[in-house]
């Protein structure tokens, strides 16, 4: 029950930030992909089941808000949540490099998928490519910095190290 409450709270906060503080940046062409960021962070902390559930819930809410192409965010984010959750078993989750790479990759995939729906003609691809790359380049370092800041404020690792699987040592 506590987990569901936290999931709803994070989904609400993410959507709030997306529709208020981040719109001014987005209209200037800099998209901070907070949907991908929140999904990656949640999946790193709670593994694949919760990762995909979070991604789906967040994506569905974003789809409803957008009014067009229902299911596009939900599909991409649930797959991303699952993939990051699975990877979190073997990765050092508190490593800055891991977070940077995961955020970069997740943003790149999510934004590419979203951009594919706006791909009206071949002439659009340079703009969309630039938008996708800019989003990934902006989201990954800012997201990593934010996590580092949260870690410093909390005084303890946010994720802990990868679990040592019993089968791996046998």
């Amino acid at each position, binding site marked *: 029950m506590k987990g569901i409450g936290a999931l709803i709270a994070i989904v609400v906060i993410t959507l709030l930030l997306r529709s208020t503080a981040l719109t001014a940046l987005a209209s200037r062409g800099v998209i901070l992909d907070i949907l991908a960021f929140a999904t990656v962070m949640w999946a790193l902390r709670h593994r694949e089941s919760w990762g995909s559930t979070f991604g789906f819930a967040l994506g569905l809410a974003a789809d409803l808000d957008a*009014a067009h192409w229902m299911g596009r965010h939900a599909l991409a984010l649930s797959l991303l949540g699952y993939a990051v959750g699975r990877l979190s078993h073997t990765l050092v989750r508190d490593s800055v490099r891991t977070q940077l790479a995961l955020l970069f990759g997740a943003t790149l995939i999510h934004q590419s998928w979203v951009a594919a729906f706006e791909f009206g003609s071949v002439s659009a691809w340079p703009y969309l490519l630039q938008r996708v790359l800019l989003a990934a380049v902006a989201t990954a370092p800012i997201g990593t910095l934010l996590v580092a800041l949260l870690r410093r404020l909390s005084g303890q690792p946010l994720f802990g190290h990868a679990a040592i699987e019993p089968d791996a040592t046998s």
Partner: protein
Amino acid sequence: MGGFLPPAERRSSALLGLYAALSILLLLAGDRLPTASLRGLGAIVFTPLDRLVLSVDRMAGAWRENQRLHQRLAELEVENVRLKLSGLENQQLRQQIGLPAWHGVDLKPVEIVALSGEPIPVAATLSAGHQQGVEVGDAVMAQDGLLGRVSEVYPSLARAVLLTDPNSAIACEVESTGVLGILHSMTAPRPRLVLTGVPLSDTVRIGQQIVTSGFSSRYPRGIRVGTVMRVGRETSGLTQDIEVAPSARLGRLRYGFVVMRPGPGEGPR
């Protein structure tokens, strides 16, 4: 991923399959679902929170804006006197040639509670709804220019489709010359507003103002829409490709106005 990862749990794989199937189903049939009521519920839940988040940003901006508005008010007072005289003259001239008199527009101030869409907002949640007299189809504008029209109305909130929505079409004219066209939002090769349907024989220049023409029943005539940024030739070679920069600053919307419809017997605007 199986090589260096532990085996996947059956539960998580089943969940992923369920979510993926649901998402694909929504992609295929989602547009046919009645989602307006869900969005209305979302707007009601999110509005107080949106206001809370925005209040911090708006308080800081209000101080700077107040100073600027004082100056603007003084300028407008002077201009208002001049326009009143011109209006009077216009009314007399219209009367002389037998044209019906112009009516002003009735504006209802609203707060822009939230914006949707990336990179450019395509929809906005407004702080007034059915109870305040807002109706589907009402035009929405900001102090700088046209924003769009009301698409969904809830009891005390409304959702507006902005002129950047790919499905919007607005009948416009070039202010100084009266050249007519339809304003569309295009996503390729990049998001932009384009005035379409303007023949090559009509002269349109960069910097000219675009206003609503009044030929659409949704938008009253004379609302500022944007400025001509680029003039080219459309791919078919038959009409012009006129790029328009919106007058309203869509990324920084705080307040707007719903253009209320005239009551019965008030006649056209």
